[in-house]
């Protein structure tokens, strides 16, 4: 009568773990040689940029866990955070393989300083209310989806495969965020005002998304080429949400440098302190 899986823990061998334990390398089984004509250093730097965007955005979504306004959104936000974490793992692993350093995903995630992170500042800004959360997610997912749709044709087959997977995920993320922006914008007076504030707060980080870094021009998608598509989607969603486009200027960088150059906001140091604390306290450990 006690036919349960708890007993099975004493079985021998890895079969008791349902799917085995050999998931150390997310790119296991893939040909990771950098194709001729692709600059390996550029490819690695570009994968770091895209990987860091996903890792840091995922972290901000993880911080929503147990705080969502409704259980369904608890599930949805965790799901989106997981998707982005999965993209980050693949992209960081790709970066470590391409640059020949042999650094794995964890070494890159846990043992770089904030000046070495290449994510856009939009991803790292401290969480606000739920309106800020969905405003940021709408902007982030719309921008990233446009990039990934083009990266499906990347000269690097590994990056192209990662992009193909990401496109499906981001289409859902954008849809989820857009629906909430519409509900909140066209909901109550209070929710309309909060959605307005959330969008305004996010908007100062939008310009940076479309300012091309030389690496992006050389090996990836020049983000300035997807601006029109981004604007089209936002115009449609904001109209349905009875909201006008924010009239907020983009933030300047520091001597022209911002996230892609490793120049971040003050929030980034605290984010990494949290993200990296256990890994750095046990440097020789295996997890």
């Amino acid at each position, binding site marked *: *009568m*006690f*036919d*349960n*899986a*708890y*007993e099975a*823990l*004493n079985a021998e061998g890895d079969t*008791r773990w*349902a799917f085995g*334990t050999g998931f*150390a390398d997310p790119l296991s089984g893939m040909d990771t040689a950098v194709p001729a004509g692709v600059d390996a250093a550029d490819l690695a730097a570009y994968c770091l940029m895209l990987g860091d965007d996903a*890792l840091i955005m995922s*972290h901000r979504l*993880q*911080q929503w*866990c*147990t*705080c*969502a*306004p*409704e*259980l*369904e959104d*608890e*599930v949805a936000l*965790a*799901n989106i*955070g*997981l998707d982005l*974490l*999965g993209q*980050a*793992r693949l992209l*960081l692993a790709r970066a470590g393989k391409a640059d020949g350093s042999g650094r794995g*995903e*964890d070494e890159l*995630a*846990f043992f770089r300083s904030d000046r070495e992170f290449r994510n856009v500042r939009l991803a790292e800004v401290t969480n606000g*209310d*739920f309106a800020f959360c969905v405003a940021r997610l709408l902007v982030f997912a719309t921008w990233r989806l446009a990039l990934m749709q083009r990266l499906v044709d990347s000269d690097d087959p590994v990056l192209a495969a990662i992009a193909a997977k990401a496109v499906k995920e981001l289409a859902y993320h954008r849809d989820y965020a857009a629906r909430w922006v*519409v*509900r*909140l914008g*066209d*909901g*109550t007076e*209070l*929710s309309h005002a*909060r959605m307005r504030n959330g969008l305004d707060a996010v908007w100062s980080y939008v310009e940076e998304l479309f300012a091309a870094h030389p690496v992006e021009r050389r090996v990836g998608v020049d983000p300035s080429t997807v601006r029109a598509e981004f604007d089209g989607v936002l115009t449609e969603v904001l109209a349905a949400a009875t909201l006008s486009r924010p009239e907020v200027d983009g933030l300047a960088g520091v001597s022209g440098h911002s996230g892609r150059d490793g120049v971040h906001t003050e929030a980034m140091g605290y984010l990494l302190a*949290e*993200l990296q604390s*256990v*890994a750095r306290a*046990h440097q*020789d*450990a*295996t*997890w």
Partner: protein
Amino acid sequence: MTVEPMAEPRDHFEATIAADQRIEPRDWMPEGYRKTMVRQIAQHAHSEIIGMQPEGNWITRAPSLRRKAILLAKVQDEAGHGLYLYSAAETLGVDRSDLVEKLITGRQKYSSIFNYPTLSFADVGVIGWLVDGAAICNQVPLCRSSYGPYARAMIRICKEESFHQRQGYELLMTMMSGTQAQRDMVQDATNRWWWPSLMMFGPPDEESPNTAQSMAWKIKRHTNDELRQRFVDMTVPQADKLGVTLPDPDLRWNAERGHYDFGAVDWSEFKRVIAGDGPCNAERIAHRRRAHEDGAWVRAAASAHAAKRAERVKEAAR
């Protein structure tokens, strides 16, 4: 075999229970049965939701991206369990929002285990191993609960719990083959979670007033002490294999009984935690209440928007 409809609804209920068949939402049931089921399912749902907090505490600090993904997925599963358990409770004529209200005002309980703090990343593994292990021992018999919607929800929940439990144990195995600091973390976490895990089976049989009725209604299939003994018997060899010591000097094999003897559970601590004075009771409920209240304007907006849309559809049809 199905039970033929009977003229007297009470006879139908009794015959269904006697034949080990399921009671379904539209069947007549005694008021006491309905109340007991609502209480049991709601407490279980609340436990899933509150249970997200102690483990959720480590998601942003998980020391590898793989462990982070595993933990985030697990906590997400718990939200999913909460969702379908609330749905199962709703088949008995209650409303999810009322149950949530009862949780955050302290009128309904959740498993006392979640009132203990998670103090290191090893706690994530030990919760998987011991707490999910104890939950499985409690819950597998509930897949045969006499109330259909609950029994069916439990089948899926138990599958996912088993998966979590293996993930927890696998994390501990990895940590035990790591550094001395990691082994010490696992031992420390085991020391802190062992006794609270034994308390998860509830008070001793002689102090469990509802057990007899619940067993007669086939809502419950084994007594608290039976399940607790079974859990100890299964866990001791697992602890040996892991290389940790269970913090009980009286723990030893009794060949005569064919079971492990174990020391006395500190029921006074259990009572204090149940009464609200556990290390984290206030914090857990305050966090839940804050999230609920912070989300009120969002839920209000969703309702207002849905009403506007419905109105527009009506307008268009005119």
